[in-house]
Structures are given as C-alpha cells and as structure tokens.
C-alpha cells in the first residue's frame, strides 16, 4: 500500500477494537494478514498552538529512510504539504527551505516548535480475499498509544480502520463499507490523529492562550470572582514556568511576566475584596517575582529588536554593532542561569503553592473586606469608573513641557484601566468593552514607546560604558551605539509629539459617552434580561466564574 494512498477511515469504538472488527469482517470474507508494522510520529506546535490556530497540524514522521515533516490542513480540503528534514524541528526559521517551512514561518513568529504529542502506532495490513484468493479490498488497522510530553501522561486511544479499495472491485468495497457503517455502526474518523490523542489525554487543542477570556457571572460575589480571575492568572504563571526556566523561547517568560503584572494589578485595583494584610503580603511577593524576571526580559527585548536596531543604522555602521550582540549574549547565559535558579527555588514553589491555597480556600461567610460580598458587577463598575476618571485627569494635565515621570504615571494608570476592562469584559454587552480596550491599546502603544525608548536609550548608554571598560568596544562600535541612542531618542520625541492627538480620542465625547453608558448601568446579565426579583438587590451568588 502506498504511503500517500488515501483510503476511507473509520474510528473503532473501544468495545470493538481491532480484533473485534476483524472477527466481524472475517465472517463475511476470507482474510490474509501481512506482517504488522510499527510507526512512530510526533506532533509539533508552538506552546500557544500557532500552527493549529493557522488551520493545520505539524507532524514529524519517521518513514523507513530519514525524517519527514508534514503539514496537514484541518479544513475540509485535507491538503498535505511535506518536506524531508534531517532533525526534529525547533526554530521554524532553522528548517530547510521547503513548503512546510513556508507555511508555518509567519504564524509561528518568534515561537519555537515543541513536541506536543507523541503517537506510537502498530499497523496491521489485512487483505480481504475473494473465492480465487484475490485481494479485493485492503485494510489498514491501526492501534495507537499517545504520550503527552508536557505532563508525561501516556495511554491508549481509539483505533482506526482504513479501507483502501482495489481498482475494479467497487462492489466489494461498497459491501465492506456497508458492513462497517450499517452493520458495525462505525463513524468516519474525521480530523487528524492529534485531536484523538489530545482527547484521550483529556486535553483539547489550543488549550493555552495568554489572552484573558473569562466568563463571569455579574451577580457573583466580588471576592469569589476576583479569586477566579487570579486563579486563571496563576494557571498561566504555572504553565509558563517550565518553558521560562528552560528558556525554550522568549515568550514563556514574557507571558509569565504579563500574568504576574496582571496579578499585581488585580490585587491593587480590585480593592476591598480581600483582607488588606493579605493584599499587602501578596503584592510584595509578586513584586519580587516581577523583579527577578526583569533582567532576562530586558536582554530578550534587545535580542528580538537587534536586527531592527542594526537596520536603522547607516549601512557603513551596521557591521560595527555586532560586538553589542556578542556582549548581550555573553551576559545572557549568566542572567538566564540566575533566573532559572529563582524560578526553580523553594521560595517560588512555596509562594505559588500558598497563593493557590489562599485562592482555593473556602470563602469566608463573614468577610472583613468591605466589598467582598458585593456583586462583582457593582465593584467592577465602580473601579473602572474611578480609574477612567484618573486617566482623564492625569492625561489632561499633560502638556508639551510635562516631565517624563508624569507620562510614566499616566501609562501605569492606563494599564490598570486596560487590565480592569479585560478582567471584567464578559460582564458587559458584547463588543462595547472591546472598543474601549482597543483605544487603551493605542494610547498604551504611544506611552509605551515613549517609556521603553527612554529606558532603552539609557540602558544602551550603560552598556556602552561597560563594554568600553571591558575593552569590548572599538571606537566604531561606540559610534554605532551612539547613533542608535540618538535614533531612539528621536523616536521618543516623535512619540511624545504624537501623544496629544492619540489621547484626544480618550477625551472625546464619543468615548466619554461610551464609558458612562457601559459602566454606569445597573447590574444586568448580558445574556438574559432582568427577571423580577433578580435585580441587583438580590444577594450575590457564590463564585460562579469559569475561565
């Protein structure tokens, strides 16, 4: 049977299995079995399922000679791209040129391909014979076992039977298919094997995203819902820890840091739902985590931006920037080792365990925090309105001569407002908050540019000094870095000049109306209209928030 030969495939229910289905077909026709073959394959994707999100699955197969990388489309067309490779994939850009590389390069971006699922298969080839002992249909019956490398779980999964017709024996094929579908009630096996394996492992594809996507009950107790938001962020922190420790790619640490920042923001902004002493303790602990993860992230940013920096220089200076990259890389390993030690430290393990313990402990019947029992909608409305007022006030105060510190304060307030809106998005009519978040992103891009460019220019100056001290920078390199700093400061100036027009949209009537309308409305379930007796006066239900 040819490897690329496409047959019609059915899934075998557990109670029937390969032996069961063979026994049934054997009652109808004589069968001849050939030697069974073992095959092994692994499915690759980035941690955030970029390939899957782009409509495909990536399979590393081990045919008898060499390795082959296959991209299979998830949509109905079942298209397949393939290319030989000499080793397991890692960075998409490092793959040899070929159709699979071209397909996945853009969707994967800066993420590394990781083995997400391993499948070992035993394929039994069985020929269905007629009265002349001539093969009239070929069958491939496969028994699979999955191994989930992320959690080390392994186990059996549904078998499959593939029917390969033999030319000129259509009647026999039809009779066999009728036996399988009508007689044995087998369902077609749709979708790649990866999905079966994930299901067998109790997982679903695309089960990780750094985006916030909570479904909150507006009537839920504020403290319970806040706990569920924080639990979601804790899950993100924990899932990214191993990848950040091993430095599989820069996004593990990035996502971890974003989740830590959001945790700190939630603790600070969703006020009076937890005892103040607890909040103070946890804010401090997460500040530590944010701080120890900073140095590697800074270096990551330089490395990710390095090509852009280099290309922004005049052609003649570009080669002289190379020592900067060498310098960054030389310090990188040191910082990463320090980070890995912190991320694996008993201090962090204990901290996260205690944090989970706190978030999952029984809800107090009589909480000391004043807003703990309020409905989350009420708390969210109040917090968002207050923060929006602060952003408006701080933004209005900014003039052409305002010091950078004020811009920085405004940026922090905008970020807090954005996070609050994102946490509580599902409490409000669909789409309204999305528009507001979009606007906050635009403003934050501008403020972020301003702030980051200042920090980067300052950091580059420090690095230049250290490189000179360590004898690692020739004059040309220092000149190149100087030009780069000048360029960053010029960009910072442009960001500063653009601020007023970007922020004008926040101050505009339309935005004010929208803010007022969305966050000032009485408590209302966005799905169902108010029912008598279910208004805001009713005591809020206990933590009903699902992520």
């Amino acid at each position, binding site marked *: *049977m*040819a490897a690329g030969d496409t047959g019609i495939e059915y899934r075998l229910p557990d109670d029937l299995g390969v032996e069961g289905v063979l026994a049934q077909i054997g009652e109808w026709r004589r069968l001849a079995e050939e030697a069974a073959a073992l095959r092994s394959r692994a499915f690759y994707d980035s941690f955030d399922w970029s390939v899957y999100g782009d409509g495909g699955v990536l399979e590393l197969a081990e045919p008898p000679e060499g390795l082959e990388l296959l991209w299979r489309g998830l949509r109905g067309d079942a298209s397949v791209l393939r290319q030989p490779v000499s080793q397991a994939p890692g960075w998409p850009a490092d793959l040899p040129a070929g159709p699979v590389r071209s397909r996945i390069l853009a969707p994967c971006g800066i993420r590394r391909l990781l083995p997400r699922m391993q499948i070992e298969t035993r394929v039994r080839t069985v*020929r269905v014979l007629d009265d*002349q*002992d*001539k*093969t009239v249909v070929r069958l491939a019956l496969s028994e699979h076992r999955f191994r989930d490398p992320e959690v080390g779980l392994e186990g059996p999964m549904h078998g499959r039977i593939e029917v390969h017709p*033999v*030319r*000129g*024996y259509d009647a026999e094929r039809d009779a066999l298919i009728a036996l399988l579908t009508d007689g044995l009630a087998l369902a077609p096996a749709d979708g790649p094997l990866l999905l079966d394996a994930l299901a067998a492992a109790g997982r679903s594809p695309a089960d990780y995203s750094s985006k916030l996507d909570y479904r909150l009950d507006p009537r839920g107790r504020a403290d319970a819902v806040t706990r569920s938001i924080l639990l979601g962020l804790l899950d993100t922190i924990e899932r990214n820890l191993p990848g950040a420790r091993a430095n599989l790619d820069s996004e593990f640490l990035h996502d971890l840091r974003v989740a830590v920042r959001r945790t700190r923001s939630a603790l600070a902004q969703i006020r009076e739902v937890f005892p103040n002493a607890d909040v103070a303790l946890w804010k401090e602990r997460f500040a530590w985590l944010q701080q120890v993860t900073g140095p590697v992230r800074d270096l990551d940013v330089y490395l990710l931006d390095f090509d852009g920096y280099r290309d922004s220089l005049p052609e003649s200076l570009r080669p002289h920037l190379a020592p900067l990259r060498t310098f960054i890389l030389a310090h990188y390993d040191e910082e990463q080792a320090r980070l890995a030690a912190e991320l694996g430290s008993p201090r962090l393990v204990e901290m996260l365990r205690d944090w989970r313990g706190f978030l999952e402990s029984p809800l107090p019947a009589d909480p000391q925090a004043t807003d703990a029992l309020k409905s989350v909608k009420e708390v969210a409305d109040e917090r968002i309105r207050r923060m929006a007022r602060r952003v408006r006030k701080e933004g209005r105060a900014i003039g052409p001569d305002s010091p950078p510190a004020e811009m920085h304060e405004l940026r922090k307030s905008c970020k807090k407002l954005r996070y609050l809106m994102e946490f509580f998005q599902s409490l409000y009519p669909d789409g309204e908050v999305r528009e507001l978040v979009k606007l906050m992103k635009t403003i934050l891009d501008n403020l972020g540019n301003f702030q980051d460019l200042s920090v980067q220019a300052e950091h580059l100056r420090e690095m230049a000094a250290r490189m000179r001290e360590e004898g690692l920078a020739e004059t040309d390199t220092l000149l190149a870095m100087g030009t780069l700093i000048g360029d960053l400061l010029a960009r910072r100036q442009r960001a500063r000049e653009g601020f007023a027009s970007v922020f004008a949209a926040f101050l505009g009537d339309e935005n004010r109306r929208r803010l007022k309308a969305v966050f000032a409305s009485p408590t209302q379930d966005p799905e169902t209209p108010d029912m008598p007796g279910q208004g805001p006066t009713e005591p809020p239900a206990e933590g009903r928030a699902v992520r």
Partner: protein
Amino acid sequence: MRIVALYNIKGGVGKTATAVNLAYLSARSGMRTLLWDLDPQAAATYYFRIKPEVKGRKALFRGRRGLGEVVKGTDFEGLDLLPAEFSMRNMDLLLEDQKGPTKRLMRLLRPQSDSWDRVVLDCPPSISLVSENVFRAADALLVPMISTTLCARTLELLLEFLEGQPKGSNPKVLPFFSMVDRRKRLHRELMEELRERFPGFLDVAIPYTTEVERMGIHRMPLPTYAPSHPACDAYRDLWSKLESALDGAGEGGIPLRHAG
C-alpha cells in the same frame, strides 16, 4: 507511457511468464504498470487470480468505454491488469467491424498516457488483426526465442511481415533467449548461430526451470515467492536491458528494412 509487447508467432515459448514477471518488476521499480492480457487462454489473468471476464468488452472496442473502467488492480502496488476472457478469441471479428481496424489498440491506449508509465501486452501466438494492432501500438516487441530451428523460422516470418507493414508500424524488435537449458549442446550451438544470423539479440537467457512453471501453482509472479532464484535474476536482467533499449541507450534491436 511506453508500450512493450511480448510476442511470438509460435506458442509455448515462455511469453506469458515473461510478461507477468516483467510487469511485476516494472511496478516494483515504481512505474505504474498495466498488463493487458490479449491472449484468450487468459493465463496472465489466471496468474493474478483475477476472473477472466471483461464487462462491456464490446463497448470498449467500440470506444464507448475507457480502459480505466475495465482494468482490475492486482495484489501488487502499482500493477493493474486488463483481464482476458475466452470470448476474446473472436477479437479479430470485433476489430474488423471498426474503422481503422489496425489502430484500435493504439487509440484505446493513447488517452491513458497519464495513467500508466508502462504497458505490457501479453499477445496471443499468431499473426492476426490483433497482432497488427499490437505492432502499431508497441514501442518494442520482446520476442522470446527458444533454441529450435522452427523458432528461428518464426522470427524470420515476423521480420518479413513487419517490413511489409506501413512505416507507422515500427516497433523495436528485441529477441531474447527463453527456456534455455545450457546443459544441452544443441541449445548452446543454436543460440550461437541465431546470434550471428540476427545481430540485435538482447544478451539475456531466461533459464528453463520448473520454478517458473510453479507460477501456475502459486498464482503469483516468480519474484514474490522465489526472489533469489537464478531465473529471477535473468528476468531482472531482461527488465533492465529492455529499459535501456527503450531509452535508446542500450544494446539490441533488429533493424527493419521497410519495403515501402
């Protein structure tokens, strides 16, 4: 698509065994191959355990059905077979009914040039309208020769016939020795003599062996059950020399001197 016919006016020269084994080796080498059993004895069909019946045979020859609708997949990847059936003994009559009766086979095969890389025709012994069709369609005539004087005579007859045909019938004529018993002095002498008389013989000798005859018991090509038998090596040798000849690179081929 290249078309190779196993042909000899004389029967019992190892024609079908060669057609079956060559077709199998062709498919094994990765070429999509069709074996067309034109012999009403249906021996090739039997070797592949396929029932000797062709539904819609008349419609096929009248051009109302395509070849693809009547071929059968064999048990081997890449190898299809167009079965023979006993009623095919009257194929001549069927062909006579058609316009351009000597081009019928060619016209059936031509639209299929993307379906198969190689077509092997197992021809009935005789010179008839069927064989005239074969001569028109084939790129090469592989002629199994046994070491008898009678066989030399049939090759002469074939060459004379081909030379009398219009230039459209111009297959490469590739005789080779079949059913050879090297222990017999007569065989060796006749082989020597034939080579001298007909330069262009392929330098291949398929040995006479009961293992080849067992194909009828196994109902399978020889390489599937006796892959290391010397006869298998000889068929592989024949296959590679045939391929070279088809490429125009190899030895062999008796030049034809067309009269017209």
